[in-house]
């Protein structure tokens, strides 16, 4: 690993550089642990450690001068050991019972709870770091505190689950009792969710991912509690501070100090132990010392039956409330009930309604709001009945969420790949979203379109009937085949054929525009060619529907072109003759050979003003885009 810095023996030693990093406080947790474990027992390293670091350290120099002049005149630079020791006359060289036991050596106090305090300790036998919990000096002599403490150790030891610490040792010794367990490293759920809500406030990215991670941690907590319930143990003090999220996302539920075996299920514990953890009314004066202690920090998470002191009503649904309160804090950043003192909060827990998370976080998914509120019903029978059921609910919401996200992502990428213009607009109407085809084919930044009217880029001459189109859409009908010229960034227009369809429940309209510019231009060329032809012409389908007429034809019959397009060609014949002509036409169209052989055919036509006149027609048939079209060339006989 590293080049040993004291290579006289064959044993491994941390490098000099590692020691420098350590002295500067720059080693990470596990490397620091390894180095310190080594240094404690390695004479060579201890002696070779840079001696002069302390003297060089400006912090130490400042510290010495500040504290030296605390009780002395400032001009006296000298620091004697007496001067400094006088500040801590209580610190003596003591060999307490832990040192005497040799194996478990408490080193650093990291937390204090109702009855106990937790130390980081060294297991001198296996040379590892553990957590050691012992009674607090203030309450160590109280017998009920001792019983509660031992009860906690036994309950924790009994719960063998990845979400609960393992107990290695329990020493029963009256006020000197202690137990040893896994040291849990990580960040409290409280600090994780505080960070998340700070992120939300400052509008930083990655919010959704972090929320989903927090919800997954919550599910792990709920599963742990469900396991405890299956072992007939209630936690009774769930709160985000009591939940630790490890470096690899592993979740541990701590502090089973208020835990108690369920009534009537004194599983593995004698009934006698029970009274230590759950004070009955008779026992209240003794129990209230610790209960009070536990309440002070956490009434915000307390279920109504706990706040009212109805200890007989405390059951798994009490933990369901606790879980819901933690979920509430994840969603909103605050506990369901807060106040300036414990009494106010408890009063609110009992008498005030819970403010729905949705009222605090308006963009919260309503399903999440409901799941959370499902655990916060004051009447126990209206809550989720088990922690497992509660966890299942959130888990299934997460699952649908995940599959929806996948579908959304897929849809989004398909939209972005499309060459068709797409946009979504609302009732105002204003654009909510546009795809990247706007950029690729017209040069517009899709984001710049957001907020504009959907037809902002349409040629002014093409927008005349758009209001009617909007009306159709808002009635809930689809509108299609709208041909519009759309402005491109370079000032040119391109033709698009638009289809729009409303999604009424979302209050939005989705539109898609296909580029038909080339098609339209080709059609225009074809029209101008036909108009340049000296004789009157009509183009029709096999069903004899008029597809196109040239200028000469409109002049000959006195109709506007628009009045003829899509009509049956029979409008050009006198009414009496229409049926007969239709049959003849059919033959000419079907049997192209006939028309080719027969040349001109004599017919009668009728003008718009009713004038009848004789004419000849030549037929020719051609195939355009899979469709057979017939071109009839008409000449008036003078």
């Amino acid at each position, binding site marked *: 690993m590293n080049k040993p810095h004291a290579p006289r023996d064959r044993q491994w030693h941390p490098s000099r550089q590692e020691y420098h990093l*350590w002295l500067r*406080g720059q080693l*990470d*947790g596990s490397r*620091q*642990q390894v180095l*310190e474990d*080594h*240094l*404690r027992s*390695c*004479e060579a390293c*201890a*002696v070779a450690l840079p001696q002069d670091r*302390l003297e060089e350290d400006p*912090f*130490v120099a*400042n*510290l010495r001068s*500040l*504290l030296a002049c*605390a009780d002395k005149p400032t001009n006296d630079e000298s*620091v004697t*050991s007496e*001067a*400094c*020791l006088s*500040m*801590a006359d*209580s*610190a*003596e*060289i003591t060999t307490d019972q832990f040192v005497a036991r040799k194996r478990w050596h*408490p*080193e*650093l*106090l*990291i*937390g204090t*709870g109702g009855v106990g305090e*937790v*130390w*980081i300790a060294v297991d001198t036998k296996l040379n590892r770091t553990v*957590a050691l*919990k012992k009674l607090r000096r203030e309450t160590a002599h109280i017998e009920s505190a001792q019983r509660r403490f031992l009860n906690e150790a036994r309950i924790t030891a009994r719960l063998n689950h990845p979400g609960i*610490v393992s107990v290695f040792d329990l020493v029963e010794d009256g006020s000197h009792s202690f137990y040893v*367990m896994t*040291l*849990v*490293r*990580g*960040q409290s759920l409280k*600090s994780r969710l*505080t960070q998340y809500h700070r992120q939300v406030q400052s509008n930083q990215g990655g919010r959704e991912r972090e929320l989903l991670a927090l919800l997954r941690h919550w599910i792990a907590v709920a599963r742990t509690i469900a396991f405890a319930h299956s072992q007939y143990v209630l936690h009774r003090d769930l709160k985000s501070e*009591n939940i*630790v999220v*490890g*470096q690899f996302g592993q979740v541990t539920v*701590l*502090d089973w100090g208020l835990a108690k075996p369920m009534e009537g299920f004194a599983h593995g514990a004698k009934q006698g132990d029970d009274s230590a953890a759950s004070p009955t009314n008779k026992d209240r004066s003794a129990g209230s010392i610790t209960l009070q202690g536990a309440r002070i920090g956490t009434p915000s998470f307390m279920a109504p039956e706990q706040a009212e002191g109805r200890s007989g009503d405390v059951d798994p649904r009490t933990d369901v409330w606790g879980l819901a309160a933690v979920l509430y804090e994840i969603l909103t950043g605050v506990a369901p009930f807060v106040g300036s003192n414990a009494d106010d909060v408890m009063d609110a827990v009992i008498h005030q309604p819970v403010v729905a998370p949705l009222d605090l976080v308006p963009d919260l998914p309503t399903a999440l709001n409901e799941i959370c509120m499902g655990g916060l019903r004051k009447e126990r029978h209206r809550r989720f009945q088990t922690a497992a059921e509660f966890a299942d609910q959130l888990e299934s919401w997460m699952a649908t969420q995940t599959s929806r996200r996948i579908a959304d992502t897929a849809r989004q990428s398909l939209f972005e790949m499309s060459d068709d213009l797409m946009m979504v607009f609302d009732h105002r109407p204003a654009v909510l979203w546009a795809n990247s085809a706007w950029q690729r084919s017209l040069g517009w930044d899709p984001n710049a379109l957001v907020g504009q009217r959907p037809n902002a880029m349409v040629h002014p001459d093409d927008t005349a009937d758009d209001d009617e189109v909007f009306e159709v859409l808002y009635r809930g009908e689809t509108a299609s085949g709208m041909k519009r010229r759309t402005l491109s960034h370079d000032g040119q227009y391109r033709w698009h054929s638009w289809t729009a369809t409303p999604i009424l429940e979302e209050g939005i309209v989705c539109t898609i525009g296909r580029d038909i510019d080339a098609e339209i231009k080709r059609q225009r060329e074809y029209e101008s060619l036909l108009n340049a032809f000296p004789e009157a012409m009509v183009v029709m389908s096999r069903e004899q529907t008029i597809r196109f007429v040239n200028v000469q034809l409109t002049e000959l019959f006195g109709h506007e072109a628009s009045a003829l397009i899509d009509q049956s060609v029979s409008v050009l014949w006198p009414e009496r003759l229409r049926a007969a002509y239709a049959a003849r036409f059919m033959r000419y169209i079907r049997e192209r050979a006939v028309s080719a052989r027969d040349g001109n055919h004599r017919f009668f036509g009728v003008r718009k003003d009713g004038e009848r006149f004789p004419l000849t027609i030549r037929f020719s048939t051609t195939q355009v885009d899979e469709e057979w079209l017939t071109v009839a060339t008409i000449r008036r006989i003078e």
Partner: protein
Amino acid sequence: MVHVEVMNLTTRLSLLEEVQQQSELAWDEFSAIYSQLLQRWLAGEGLQSTDADDIRQDVMLVVMNEIVHFQHSGRVGAFRCWLRRILANRLMRFFRAKGRSGYTNDLSIVADELFSDDSEVSRNWDLEHDRFIMMRLVESLESRFSHQSILIFKRVVLAGEDASLVANEVGVTLGALRVAQHRVLQALKTLADGLVAT
């Protein structure tokens, strides 16, 4: 509460950072220390104890409300300077409202001087602040470490005694002494970061 922040086994966030993250425990510790500092300082400047109480409470209220927004500039003593200005401001308001009734000296001069960064009053405040806070932080370490670790820290780091000698007397290896000394010192550095100019 068996948890340790992942980054470092022995040290947490600085007290200032913890307070800014709205830890109630940290705030209790912080406000106990700073209330005492303010009380001492105000008494030292000759304020009557009820007036000193009022001003101290006003200052602590402002600190409580504003500390979340306090941004350490990285400049030495930014925090004590921030606090000094709040104090000066509150003193000024106090004397504006109350006038000189009950005081023979014009104490608004003290407030004026406290505003200025290089006045005698400000220099004394800075020194008093650092000394007092450091002393109290060292005290607060005593509840976080074993007596033995604290003793080692005091003898070796504060008093500058010979490490091997101390190790011998305490009955630990030199390496174990170095670990203890280092851990307490690191914890103090972390705790003091941002509060005391170092």
